């Protein structure tokens, strides 16, 4: 039977791979999407690093085991920071597109080869 750990780990792997692929694209929009995907993967990774718990309370109430609360707090911080930086990078990409007249990450269309898309 497939374990929960294997499922989460492989899921994270797929998301990260997709993020890296998008990050290596030539246009700013896929790059921003790639950063976002990597951000999601990293957030879940932090969460999982507090171990996967089943049948455990998220907070200190009642009897029985309690899930590790610290990674949850860390993830919150990481999400907030990630959200802010994503907002910034989108705005930056738009301004760069506006200033340079191209949404290529290098600020100009590639000369040879038929374009990195």
């Amino acid at each position: 039977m497939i374990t929960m750990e294997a499922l989460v780990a492989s899921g994270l792997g797929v998301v990260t791979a997709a993020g890296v692929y998008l990050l290596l694209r030539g246009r700013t929009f896929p790059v921003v999407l790639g950063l976002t995907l990597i951000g999601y993967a990293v957030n879940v990774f932090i969460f999982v690093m507090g171990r996967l718990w089943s049948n455990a309370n998220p907070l200190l109430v009642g009897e029985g085991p309690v899930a590790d609360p610290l990674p949850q707090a860390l993830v919150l911080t990481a999400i907030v920071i990630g959200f802010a930086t994503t907002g910034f990078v989108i705005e930056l990409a738009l301004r760069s597109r506006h200033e340079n007249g191209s949404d290529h990450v290098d600020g100009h269309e590639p000369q040879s080869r038929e374009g990195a898309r």
Partner: protein
Amino acid sequence: MNGLLEIWWQHAPVLSVVLPSLTAVLLLLIGDQGGMAALGGSHGGGRLRWRRRVTLVSALLGLVMAAGMVWRASLGEVVVYRLGDWPAPFGIVLVLDRLSALMVLLTCLVALPVLWYASGGWDARGRYFHAVFQFQLMGLCGAFLTGDMFNLFVFFEVLLIASYVLLLHGQGKERFRMGVHYVVLNLTASGLFLIGLAMLYALTGTLNMADMAQRVALLEGENAVLARVAALVLLVVFGLKAALVPLYFWLPGTYAAASAPVAALFAIMTKVGVYSIIRTHWVIFGADAGEAALAVADWLLPVALITSALGVLGALAAHSMSRLVAYLTVSSVGTIMAGVGLFTPETLSAALYYTLHSTIVVAGLFLLVEQVAAQRGDDTDHLRPAHAVREPVLLGLMMLFGAASAAGLPPLPGFLGKLMILQSSHGLSAQPWLWTVVLGVGFLTIVVLARAGVVVFWHVQPAVGVAASGNSAKMLSATWVFMALTVALAVMAAPVKQYTDDAAAQLGDRAAYQRAVLGEQAQTTRPYTGARP
């Protein structure tokens, strides 16, 4: 007065973080209409003057507090500040030891002249320069003072977000182009930072550096292997900040595109990477960290030496003065990391001394280069024959001074720093490599700067068109401050070296650090298993 001193004595570490952040908020409240228009209007001009006053006074106060912290740290005590008085390792702590005090002082020493320089006109070429600058200072001071790994990440983000905005200050195509690269690279690095951090948390169940150092030493078998992986992931992250091979390619373009005061401030940004590497790989993965000890020792020295060599080759090939200085930054980071990567207290002490020197010199050179460029008409800072600068003697002498200092000619501190690194490596197996690279890089640096000096000051064409105006006294004086600082560093070499020796010894004494942070008998329930204690 005594009451104020009392407060400072109790809250010293956190005040250095709180002061810039409160100043930034105050600057935001003063407001900023932005643009050169603000200079013309009496209303906006008045606000600009107030912004300058507030930011300069705050930076001066920060400098005084940083000097006080260095004095306090030099007494040998590790000052631990528990935020909210939560006991470590559960709460976040700020830790003031010799190394962090020294780095905070260096930050303030660079920041004050740079702000003075920027108030010569750069701060009016965009909005909220001073506010963002103060946020950057907050991030820098926080990163140097924190004793908690996740808090280090948060302060990294603070200083990075501020640096994104500062880099774009003044705007223009090139800045946006380099800005996209810089931001995307650093966001990716932040992701990696979190991955490394989360792995360490999973292994040790703590984020407090002192506690983590204790627990990493207990890891065995496959867990120790995982810890080594985490150490290497963190090395990649900090290596990107510090601009080590192969992660330095972003730096020359970015620093060359940034406005001069911002580039000068960014001279300290690479040192944040250096500091984090020292903190992580000396304190947490130090020599007595069990199976995970010295996880990066095999990598750090070769990488550092290659960085140093490639940096100076890049400077040799640079076609503009600011790129040249940026490559010299890379090269100097390589030299510093070589000292760190040898993992002995003597080499670390020498590397710290060289860090002080190289940061100050590089910051001064960035400012100087812009003033030279401003007097060369359309050719600005391109390294090709143009008409003569208006003040060849003054600028030429300053350039000579900066170049001699950067290249490491006696009796300037660059010479002393390199000599210390060479001397401290005596008897180590890596000595031939280190000597070859450091001396070779020193020689090539002389060639690079001599070539630049010849092209800029001697290889001139008769002036055509309008003569450029001279530089403002403000800007020149700020550059002079950096020159004076390097002289001071050479004159006071003995006490400074004594201090860095002590700092290196303090870093080596992990038991004392852990005692100071965690108390005599710290106990935690971690790694967490779900069981109630």
